[in-house]
């Protein structure tokens, strides 16, 4: 398989992700935010493909774009958004946001400029062809316990969501 990690696609997809992310946090209408988030998620799935992680990409599409976002859209439709559209969209602690963002950003810049030399120059080659098989044998071998706990977590989440959202049990 020819390498597909070309710079062009990386920058295209990053631009899509960042524009999507900015739209998510700036749009007034929650449905528009959701649409922007879907674009971000799909672009990220494509970036996973570039990183030779096709199975994660598929999980991203199936679970995030096809599952979680449908849930979001459902809830946006259930709650009445007409009122919230007329309200102020940003709270009064925007300065906290700016301070936190600059602080975190500064931290990231400091860490990455200082630590970028610790990465090995050449990335190790990974076989893409049996990615799914390898992920499967790790998931059901070494990470079996974590897998079971994740299933338990999902069960708890289902019960919690039903208890929360139902008027009368």
């Amino acid at each position, binding site marked *: 398989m020819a390498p597909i990690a070309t710079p062009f696609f990386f920058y295209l997809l990053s631009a899509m992700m960042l524009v999507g992310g900015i739209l998510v946090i700036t749009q007034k209408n929650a449905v528009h935010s959701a649409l922007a988030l879907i674009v971000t998620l799909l672009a990220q799935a494509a970036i996973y493909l570039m990183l030779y992680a*096709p199975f994660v990409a598929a999980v991203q599409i199936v679970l995030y774009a*096809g599952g979680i976002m*449908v849930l979001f859209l459902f809830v946006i439709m259930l709650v009445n958004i007409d009122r919230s559209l007329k309200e102020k969209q940003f709270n009064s602690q925007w300065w906290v946001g700016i301070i936190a963002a600059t602080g975190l950003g500064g931290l990231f810049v400091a860490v990455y400029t200082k630590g970028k030399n610790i990465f090995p120059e050449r990335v190790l080659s990974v076989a893409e062809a049996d990615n799914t098989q390898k992920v499967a044998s790790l998931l059901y071998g070494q990470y079996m316990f974590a897998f079971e706990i994740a299933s338990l977590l999902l069960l708890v989440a289902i019960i919690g969501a039903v208890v929360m959202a139902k008027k009368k049990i």
Partner: protein
Amino acid sequence: MNAFVQYIESYLTSNLTPGAAGNMFWVFVYILLVFVGLSVAVICMNWLERKILAHMQVRLGPMRVGPHGLLQPFADALKLLLKEDIMPAEADSVIFWAAPFIVVLAAFTTFVVVPFGPQHAITDMNIGILFMLGVSSLSVLGIVMAGWASNSHYPLIGALRSSAQMVSYEVAMGLAVVSAILMTSLNATGTGTLSMIGIVEAQKAQGEWFIFKFFPLGLVSFAIFAIAMVAETNRAPFDLAEAESELTAGFHTEYSGFRWSLFFLAEYSAMIAVSSIAVTLWLGGWLRPFPNLLSGPRWDTFFSYFPGATFLALAAICFFNVARMPKHPYFRIQTVGLAGFGGFLAFIGLVLFIPAVSFRVQDIFWFSAKVAAFMYLYIWYRGTFPRYRFDQLMKIGWKVLLPVGLGVLILTAGVALFQQNLWRP
């Protein structure tokens, strides 16, 4: 220039899919072919559905536009393109505009991995079947958005119904698919595959279609998928999302003209896509009948006559109907047109008898024939079954298909483990 020609020719000798061979030129050619083929298939389906439904209800169906209404789909398409594109005043314009494109993109993107033959797929992904299920589930988003953006009651109710139905049946569908994928792991190495081409090759290597595997387990999982896929595409008898008598037209009530035709295109492409999943997983994909039992050059030649023979049979039907046309001068143009169409079909049939051509297209023919059988089933369902109520629909999905699917999955896993002698007491 020479290098370019060489680049194009270099693919013809390889027996990989264009995507796997990394040949961009042929990738584009295949994408174009799939797109054109799908559009033609949707046009044919439109005509066939109206005709077959009509004949099931003892009517004639479209008869006026062209001989036996053959030009009706083109007239419809022209009408839709020329119609005014209405957007409701209170609609959310961005999302109203984007929703049909999401649905169409989701429906068309799935065809990237559909294997029409061992090398006739745009590409072969390691995650093929998961990719198909995931991308086809994206159309739910488009439907929800279409219903919401219309800012009207019927579309919203239709969209909520439709998406609840699609999300529910995805679960049963996924379980059925998993139990089929489990069967691909019955080989020497013990590892299965998610690649669409790999699944068909596993069926060839094991010598039977997965529908007959571990009888009746394969059959039951196939039945679950076959029911779930009808619900997944919102077709009768599970079409309460667009129940004409209750919701006028469901989520696309407010759509008209070109945008509505995009929904139409997406619906039929999605039907073809899920049928291709069913054909690939359970009915042996591109494999001709009895590829192992009736092997050898003589049988190969015999089966390679089928594509041409099919087109010749269609041409014969055309000529038969030419003979039955009324002799009144009013019908002269129609008669000539039908004869011309028959001649065209006969020409295609004769071309398909050329050994080099028939050898290349026979895989595509067998795949399409199996998909066409599913398309006929869709029309047949629509003609015969009454529509379900919403609670009945949910009951079938969650209380019948899901438990049965789980049971089949566990049984399949157990039998497969037993057969592989991995189970040591």
